[in-house]
């Protein structure tokens, strides 16, 4: 499972690096850079092909939409996981408190 993510991550990093280098070439273009530019463009297409292949391995992965909201706001998505765990623990404590209260009441009534 982790290997699939590592594989996709590697391909994405290479793709992004290729795009960054493409941007550097284009920012100050010289005639001698044309061959390099063409090569980078074809690397971009092969990178997209590799990412497309990774998609088939990860079709069962579900991502909550709230994570996308965090990313769109420029926030760390790990904050979503942290908040989920905190909310779960908080709710767990609330329910435990209710159960304990009801148990104590039931015992008092019996006595």
């Amino acid at each position, binding site marked *: 499972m982790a290997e699939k993510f590592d594989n996709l991550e590697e391909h994405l*990093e290479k793709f*992004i690096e290729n795009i*960054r280098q493409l*941007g*550097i070439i*284009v*920012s*100050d*273009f*010289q*005639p001698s850079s*044309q061959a390099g*530019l*063409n090569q980078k*463009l*074809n690397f971009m*297409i*092969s990178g*997209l*092909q590799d990412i*497309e292949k990774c998609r088939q391995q990860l079709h069962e992965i579900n991502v909550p*939409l709230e994570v*996308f*909201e965090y*990313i*769109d*706001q*420029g*926030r*760390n*998505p*790990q*904050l979503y*996981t*942290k908040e989920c*765990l*905190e909310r*779960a*623990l908080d*709710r*767990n404590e*609330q*329910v*435990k408190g*209710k*159960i*304990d209260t009801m148990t104590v009441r039931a015992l008092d009534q019996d006595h």
Partner: protein
Amino acid sequence: MTEMFSTLFGQNEAQGPPGSSSLGFGAGKPQPPLPQNQVSMVGQLPPQLGDEGAAMRKPAAMNEPFYLLRELPVGNELTGNTNLITHYNLEHAYNKFCGKKVKEKLSNFLPELPGMIDCPGTQDGSSLRSLIDKPPVCGNSFSPLTGALLTGFRLHTGPLPEQYRLMHIQPPKKKSKHKHKHHRPQDPLPQETPSDSDPKKKKKKRDDDPDRKKKKKDKKKKKNRHSPDHPGLAGSQPNSNSLR
């Protein structure tokens, strides 16, 4: 108790069920044949509920040991009384995310990603939400660009116009840990207030203290007097290196 209940209903059985027409209700569905022990209960249900309600309640009535006394629900071993974090083996995850301070920005999660990623995606149209709302056209295969297609990528020489220069903009990397939160490059320096108790501000206060400034000036003057470059020192003070 149940015998009394059934006998109560059984007394009215001889009278027969009241005609629905006499009570003003329309004719309902004909009832299917029922077992004997259930006839008295079902047949004498209030007529205003109608025959349809009796048919629906029949399965529920058959499961009930006593009218309105339903069986208790099956007990669940997993309740809120147990620590669900430990039950689902999430202690490591909890300590990892909640034990340490998780940084706020996206660039802390993806430090190697170039460009300004901490800005909201809606500003430059790179949001994931827009990708979900308007998905791109998929299904076409990716094929390498041929020579004829690459002719479209022949660019003019020279630098890009400034309006298109976005790739090289990087967020300022803040290396210094000691930063003044109120100090911004656009805003002027804040004025001192006696209520400030921050040690960094205290340090700044020390520097801005007029007495301190005077002392520093005096120290500088003393240093300059002792330095060989100072013109006043050449004849006034004895120098160990000078020969007599």
